[in-house]
Each structure stands twice: as structure tokens, then as C-alpha cells.
């Protein structure tokens, strides 16, 4: 890929350093704290899974926190997102209640989907999170309809639609971006590009360097950004937001990052080397953002670590509480299928 992602050395780097002065301090703090919450939340969920308290499977976004936080940080509270199976980051960044979220992982009645959805299908409709789809690419056509409703309602709101690199090989990606572009819908398409679709590296499933190239087929802007640089993501998505909000139509943002964990709980990582994984751990978006903040003297090490610890405690508390919640009852499930 043309975008080179630097290793995090002692000096933190961002291609959008200027945002450190332009963005309010609370905003920067909010971003760092959300990134830490995502990391701690997923580590906790993994731990609960290993202890057999969470079942099914799980898709962790550890290493990709800058993409979800950097993009959602650009939104207004009333804006919307729709996302995919690797969606814990988006859910937390969009402001999910960690306890209600963890309760869903644990299949409890008080979880976001009352235990019906699980970790792969968290939706918080009132919170503007219109849900995670487990069918690769399956949320993208739905995103077209959400954005269409926003347009027909003359709304100021916009929608961020998330999917992975592998999803861009699905026909639904193509039909949806074409339709959204033709109708100039208020949506930003964001590819959480972790370079693999399960075991398949992007280079094995497509014959192009950058996924953002595909924007050309729809006559929309496409940009590949360093997805480990939360400020760079913020800057690219904000520009796309403005385009969407002003009625000029969608954009395609390709956030280049890497997934540290296996694809899901059944992954034996046979398709990549331990060394590759290790190299990417040295590009940790969280450590990197911390360094950027400290090196630019926006925050002290103490401030940064306070935010980090606050995130950790919030996650621990959420898990503890969620574990006390009751399971749903299997009675009358058939009555839930259809709306009255």
C-alpha cells in the first residue's frame, strides 16, 4: 500500500498534528479515553470468553481503535452509524453504555439486544447505532436506505457505514456505492481495512494497491489513510462528512490498519507470521496517540495515564455489574418476531 504506517518510537507522530491545537482539549481526551475503553473492553470480553462466560464466537478489533474513534469523533450526536461483525469499537465510540453492551455479550435480558443478538449484532437504535451485521457487506445496502430516508426527510444528519476490506469484494458493496453516488446520499463509506479477510490478505483477493481506488467506479472521492493515526482518520472523515452533509454525496475512506488477534476465536493464524503481528504491535494506535499528545505537550504523562486507568476501571465495573444481570426467558419468543 502507498500509505506507510510508522512504528511508534519514542517520538509520537501524526500527519495531522495541527488538530492538536485546533481541537478542544476535552475532545482529544475523549478520543484517547474511548480508544482505551475499546482496548480494555475487548481484552475483558476475550477473558470472559476464555472463561466460558461469553459463548459463540467473537471478532476483536484490537489494534484498529483509531479507525472507529477517529471517524466517530467527527460526528454530531444526532448522526448515525451502521457497521459490521467487527463492531465493538464503533459501538463504544458511538457512546454505548459499557454495562448494557457487556450484558449483551453475556446474553442477558438487559443487554442491548436482550441477549438475542450477541457480540456480533449490537444495535443501540436510540443512540444512533443502527446495528452490526454479520453477513459480510450485508449492512451496506441497508446503509443506502438509511441515507435515503435522511435525504427524503431533508435531515441534517449523516450516516457512517463501516465494513472491512474483504467486504469490498461483495456485489452489495458495488451496488450500494453506485446507488448512493447516483442519488448523492448523505453517507460516508468507511473501510476498516485490516488487510485480511479472515485468512486472505488483500493482495490475494484483489488486483489493486488501494481499496480507495474503487471510488473511481462511482465518481466519488476515495482516500486511503493511516488508520493507526487517529487524527489523520479524523481529518479525512471530517472532510467526507462535510461533503455528505452539504448534499454532494458519499465518499469512500480506506482506513489502513491491522488486526492483532485472530479473525475470530477459531483462528490459528496460519496465514501470517508471528513477526508480522509483532511489527504491527509496534505500530499500536493507542501508544502512538499517547506519545503524540505528550510529545506535543498537550497532556502530561499523568493525564494520559489517568484517562487510561479511568477507561480500565469503567470496563471492569461494567463487566462486574453485567454478570449480575438475569438471563432472558425462552417464553413466547414467536411473539417477538413481528411488530404489532
Amino acid at each position, binding site marked *: 500500500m502507498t500509505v506507510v504506517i510508522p512504528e511508534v518510537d519514542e517520538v509520537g507522530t501524526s500527519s495531522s498534528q495541527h488538530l492538536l491545537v485546533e481541537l478542544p482539549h476535552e475532545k482529544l481526551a475523549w478520543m484517547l479515553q474511548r480508544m482505551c475503553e475499546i482496548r480494555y473492553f475487548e481484552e475483558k470480553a476475550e477473558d470472559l470468553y476464555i472463561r466460558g462466560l461469553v459463548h459463540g464466537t467473537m471478532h476483536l478489533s484490537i489494534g484498529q481503535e483509531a479507525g472507529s474513534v477517529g471517524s466517530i469523533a467527527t460526528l454530531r450526536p444526532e448522526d448515525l452509524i451502521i457497521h459490521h461483525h467487527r463492531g465493538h469499537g464503533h459501538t463504544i465510540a458511538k457512546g454505548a453504555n459499557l454495562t448494557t453492551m457487556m450484558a449483551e455479550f453475556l446474553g442477558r435480558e438487559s443487554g442491548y439486544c436482550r441477549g438475542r*443478538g450477541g457480540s456480533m449484532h449490537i*444495535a443501540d437504535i436510540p443512540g444512533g447505532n443502527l446495528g452490526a451485521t454479520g*453477513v459480510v457487506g450485508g449492512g451496506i*445496502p441497508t446503509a443506502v*436506505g*438509511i441515507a435515503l430516508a*435522511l435525504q427524503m426527510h431533508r435531515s441534517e444528519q449523516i450516516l457512517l457505514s463501516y465494513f472491512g476490506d474483504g467486504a469490498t469484494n461483495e*456485489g452489495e458493496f458495488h451496488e450500494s456505492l453506485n*446507488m448512493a453516488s447516483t442519488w448523492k446520499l448523505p453517507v460516508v463509506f468507511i473501510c476498516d481495512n485490516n488487510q485480511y479477510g479472515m485468512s486472505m490478505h488483500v493482495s490475494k483477493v484483489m488486483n489493486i494497491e488501494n481499496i480507495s481506488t474503487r471510488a473511481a467506479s462511482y465518481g466519488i472521492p476515495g482516500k486511503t489513510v493511516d488508520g493507526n493515526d487517529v487524527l489523520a482518520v479524523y481529518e479525512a472523515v471530517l472532510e467526507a462528512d462535510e461533503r455528505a452533509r452539504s448534499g454532494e454525496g458519499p465518499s469512500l475512506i480506506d482506513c489502513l490498519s491491522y488486526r492483532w488477534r485472530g479473525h475470530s476465536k477459531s483462528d490459528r493464524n496460519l496465514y501470517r507470521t508471528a513477526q508480522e503481528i509483532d511489527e504491527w504491535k509496534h505500530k499500536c494506535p493507542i501508544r502512538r496517540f499517547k506519545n503524540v499528545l505528550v510529545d506535543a505537550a498537550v497532556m502530561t504523562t499523568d493525564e494520559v495515564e489517568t484517562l487510561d486507568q479511568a477507561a480500565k476501571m469503567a470496563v471492569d465495573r461494567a463487566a462486574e455489574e453485567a454478570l449480575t444481570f438475569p438471563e432472558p426467558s425462552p417464553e413466547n419468543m414467536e411473539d417477538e418476531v413481528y411488530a404489532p
Partner: protein
Amino acid sequence: MTTQTTREITYLEAVREALVQEMRADKEVFLIGEDVGTYGGAFGVSKGMLEEFGHERVRDTPISEAAIAGAATGAALMGMRPVMEVMFMDFLTISTNQLVNQAAKMRFMFGGKCSIPMVIRAPSGSGTGAAAQHSQSLEAWFVNVPGIKVVAPSSPYDAKGLLIAAIRDNNPVLFMEHKLLYRLKGPVPEESYCIPLQSAEVKREGRDLTIVAYSIMVPRALEAAEKLAAEGIDIEVVDPRSLNPLDEETIIRSVCKTGRVLIAHEAPLTGGFGGELAAVIAESEAFDYLDAPIRRLGGLNVPIPYNRTLERAAVPQVEDIVTAARALAQEGK
């Protein structure tokens, strides 16, 4: 319903009237599909609607059935009431993922915290010489998908009342329109009215045998019944109208009365919706009233052929219903 406002119009006009009246009544209702605007729809259903409602609410799309279904699903999730037209039911095979994994499941999967009020209008069936890929009747699939309702009107009156009910329903409703019924004329009130889903109708009363038929098979069954009346065989024709949810009572009551039942549909016999109907009857108290085995009449297990003669032979015609009903009426006597 005051009769002076009732006129004879076609099934196609009845569908259009339902759309127009609902779009006038509720600005959240809109029509989306291929060539529904300037072209007026492949079968002319939306002819003239563009002029009244404009391009935004009579929305022409690219040829992208997955995105069309997604556009309807997403808009419905946002509280609109989209009516999606697929040009031929056969092309729902491209919308399947959106309809089955998104539209049908989001409500339950997300804990009952959203609803998807949308209608999928699907011209179905054979008889137009359009061959294997433009003639299918795929209702059986969708009946097996919890979260979607399936409606298949057989008359102009039912088409209007059921479509209005489908549009007002808060769930995805697959609305089948048989191409050969579009030209069928019948009395339809001008005013807007709803026929509740899950209400079967006895289209003809009879003592000797029940024919359960829907869509195009209803007029054929009624014609067959007239022919058999001349032979002294008195046939009752029951039209479920909505396949899911199904009004089992009306069907079972009729079978309890006649003691004989013939099920007719156009889709291939094997795995068709007739199996569900037969099972519902065989599991019910009607079982004890049956004087003969349950009989099904379905399409041949073939793709629809192009040649007129072959195409006709591939699905039950009036004479096939006559033959099957006559045989069943005698059976075990």
C-alpha cells in the same frame, strides 16, 4: 362500504389505486424499483404516478436488486414505508440476502427494538412466454422465513384491500401479483379499505369437496367448479389470500364440512406451499373428517419452458383441476 362507489376495474388498476391512495394519505410511503417512473413499470402498474408524486417518491433505480432491497430495508428502519417493486419475482434471488438476513431478522436480532415496515411487490408466475428465468413462483421460500409475511391476492378487490393492509403493516410483506391476473376485472370500491392479513375467504360455497387455491389458481378453480357443478359435483373454493400468516380456521372448517380437499398452486409441486397446507390440514381436527386422502395439484417439477404448449402443460390449468377434483370427489365412494 357503499356500493354506488364501486366500479369494475382491473387487478392492475386496483394495485395502482392502493398505491396512489396510500401515497396520498402518508408521505412516508414511496415506490422504489426499476423503471417504475417514466416507463410506468414493466407491466404498467405505476403508469401516471410519476406525474402526481414526482421522481423522489416514484423512484427509478439502477439495476441493482440487492441495493434496492437494502434501500427499502434501511428506509423502513428509519420509519418510512417503502414499497419496493421487483420487476419479476425471479430477481428476488438477487435481493435474498437483504430480505432474509436483514429485513426479516433485524427486529428480533436487535431485541425487538426496531421494525421494518416495507412491502415487496413481486410480479410472479408463468403464462407470458417469458421462459425459465421470468416465470417463477417463489412463495414457498419466504413462507419459511420468520419475519416476512407473504400475501397473494387473486382478485382486484383483494389486491387493493390487501396491498393497503400490507403497506400499513409494520413488517416486511411480500406481495405477489400474478402477471396473468393484471387484466382481470372485478368490482372495487373507490374508497380506501383494508383486508386484514390472515383472513382467508370462501370464494365459492360447496358441499362435496374443498379446493384450497391462491393467486391465479383461484379463478381457475372457480371455473372448474362451474364445470363440475354441471356434473352435480358441488365444490367449495377457499382462498387463503395470505400464506403467512395463514388463516387455518377457515380452511379447516371447510374441510371438516366437505371431507375432501384438493390443494392447487402454480409453483412446482415438490416443496411447494401446498405441502404446508396439506400438513396443517392433516394435523388438524379435519383429519378425522377426511373421507379421502389429501390431494395436491401443483406445477410440474420443471423450469418454465418457452413454447406455448409446453408452458401451459407445466402448470395446472382449468381442465387439470376439473380432472383432479372429479377423481377426488369419487374417491373411496
